[in-house]
């Protein structure tokens, strides 16, 4: 029942859309594919769905060559970022469409449609046309259609991306229930939002420039990002990545004495490293690395202060509202025990021992 991709490659006009992508997707688990825009997530889904061919590589399902199976026999449902529904059909018929194609009995169709519309909270909207619904409702219709079929593979391509913030949060929470019981279905969910991936994914795949950089449980990926790129992708705001030196028990950044070398880095030989530090682990202080404030963002109860230390940008996330002005010179305090250390190529060397309870939601 596994869906296995081996060394999938696809190049279009000289740009790698997929590069040596190998992964195994297991039924009953939700695979969250996280990556920035253009990372190849959508392409991967389209290849899995059969909407897009590949240059090389293999795709097997239950041991059979899945690449040869045409789209309409792949037993796959897909929910698009852009709330795609059949404009000419009403909500009920939209959801019933695949069921009719599958040749189900009328009663069964009615039962399943009603059921899945109820699950997405659209029970009273059966006879509306998609154009008469809000964006969130349209996406629910698409979701209901995908769920109603009970397909072997369910693909969700950034289903929340085009919704406003509140709806997104609301639907995200609903998704957790919706996907909690997926039995034999391989669920693959792409997103650019670390929180979504962490919350929903049983397995997280990190993609960048057509490659899968890391696969693992959310904790694993979050705690042990294999590279600086992964580290930056799976954190929001992206993890601060900067170059520093370890020497004489001190970490030096941009010529400033930043902090002492914490225990988990103690066995590293002296030299130049790339360090990663989450925005929450940087603070403003009276002493430390000095930089200039370039931008201040206030979001709810938090303030994000963007600071340029020489060429290196930092984001500092602090509780409460702070009176910092553009152009101010500030000093950054780096929490030494939270430093991720990578070598100069960006490969993970040391991670901080992490307190799991601080990961949101888990």
């Amino acid at each position: 029942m596994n869906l296995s991709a081996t060394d999938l490659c696809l190049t279009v006009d000289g740009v790698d859309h997929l590069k040596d992508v190998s992964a195994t997707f297991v039924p009953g688990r939700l695979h969250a594919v996280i990556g920035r825009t253009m990372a190849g997530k959508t392409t991967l889904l389209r290849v899995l769905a059969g909407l897009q061919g590949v240059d090389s590589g293999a795709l097997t399902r239950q041991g059979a060559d899945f690449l040869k199976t045409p789209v309409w026999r792949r037993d796959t449902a897909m929910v698009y970022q852009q709330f795609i529904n059949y404009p000419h059909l009403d909500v009920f018929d939209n959801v019933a469409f695949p069921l009719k194609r599958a040749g189900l009995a009328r009663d069964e169709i009615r039962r399943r449609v009603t059921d899945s519309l109820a699950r997405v909270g659209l029970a009273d909207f059966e006879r509306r046309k998609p154009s008469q619904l809000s964006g969130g409702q349209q996406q629910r219709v698409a979701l209901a259609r995908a769920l109603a079929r009970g397909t072997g593979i369910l693909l969700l391509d950034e289903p929340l991306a085009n919704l406003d913030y509140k709806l997104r949060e609301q639907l995200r929470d609903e998704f957790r229930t919706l996907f909690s019981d997926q039995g034999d279905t391989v669920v693959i969910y792409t997103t650019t939002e670390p929180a979504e991936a962490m919350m929903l994914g049983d397995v997280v795949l990190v993609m960048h420039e057509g490659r899968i950089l890391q696969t693992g449980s959310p904790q694993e990926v979050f705690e042990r990002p294999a590279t600086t790129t992964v580290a930056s992708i799976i954190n929001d705001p992206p993890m601060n990545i900067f170059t520093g030196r370890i020497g004489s028990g001190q970490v030096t950044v941009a010529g400033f004495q930043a902090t002492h070398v914490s225990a988990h880095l103690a066995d590293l030989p002296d030299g130049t490293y790339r360090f990663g530090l989450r925005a929450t682990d940087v603070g403003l202080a009276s002493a430390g690395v000095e930089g200039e404030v370039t931008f201040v963002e206030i979001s709810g109860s938090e303030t994000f202060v963007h600071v340029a230390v020489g060429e290196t940008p930092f984001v500092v996330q602090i509780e409460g509202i702070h009176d910092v002005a553009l152009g101010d010179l500030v000093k950054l305090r780096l929490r030494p025990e939270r430093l991720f250390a990578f070598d100069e190529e960006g490969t993970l060397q040391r991670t901080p021992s992490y307190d799991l309870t601080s990961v949101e939601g888990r």
Partner: protein
Amino acid sequence: MRSRLYPVFKYTMIALWACFVAGPFFWAMTTSFKDVNGVQGGATYLPWLQYEPTVVGWRNIFGGAGGVDVMRPFFNSAVVTVAASAVSLVLGSLAAYALSRYRFKLGFIKNSDIVFFFVSQRIMPPVVLVIPFFYLLQWTGLLDTVLGLVIVTVALLLPIAVWVMVDFFNGIPREIDEMAMLDGCGPFQTFVRAILPNSLPGLTVAAMFCVVFGWNDFFFAFRLTFTEVQTLPQAVVALNSSIPPWWTLSAAALFGVAPLILLALRVERYLSKGNLSGAVR
């Protein structure tokens, strides 16, 4: 901001143009109720006041000596137009769908070249085509048959259908096709169940163009048929003699253009909704 004179200007222009547009219909209408006495003395406009109206022109177009029988030509025109339009719409939509959704490459020939090939057929002057068509139909035994005329008319209409439909399909998100396929439709089912139902406005516009150009074709129908497939324009032109009976000619002309005027009334809302906009971009 606008000056108060603007509405005056606006409705004056509209009225002037409306008069110009309606003029020939008015003239044909008034002439169709004249007879030789009403015509010979010079231009007259109003029945009873300026001439004694008769229905002789109208009677003459329904058979009888000295007139034409428009009913059979009407039927022929309708059959040929509907059949050729239907074939063109089917073949044209299929081809347009392919050209809108798939990429073709044959040497240096790409999609846009194929679209151009279709559309460029409109550039062919009918007079260039008609002689070869004559022999083509003769060799296939299709001269003077409805089928032969339909085939030839398809050549005229297919480019129009492709032109309108390619752009219309381009305006329908591809994701709908993809979703239909994911939902278990093969390519053909996808086209029929997911795309066509969403293409009704485009199909209406394409159908209207097909019907207009099919119905109004005189040249091919005239030269590729002998007696069996007289179409309406032929019946009207049969009255264009050295001494044309203007009243009968007018009545026949009005009868011949009436169906499409009724069509215009029915499809105006489709046309005005901007459904064509894709086709002109």
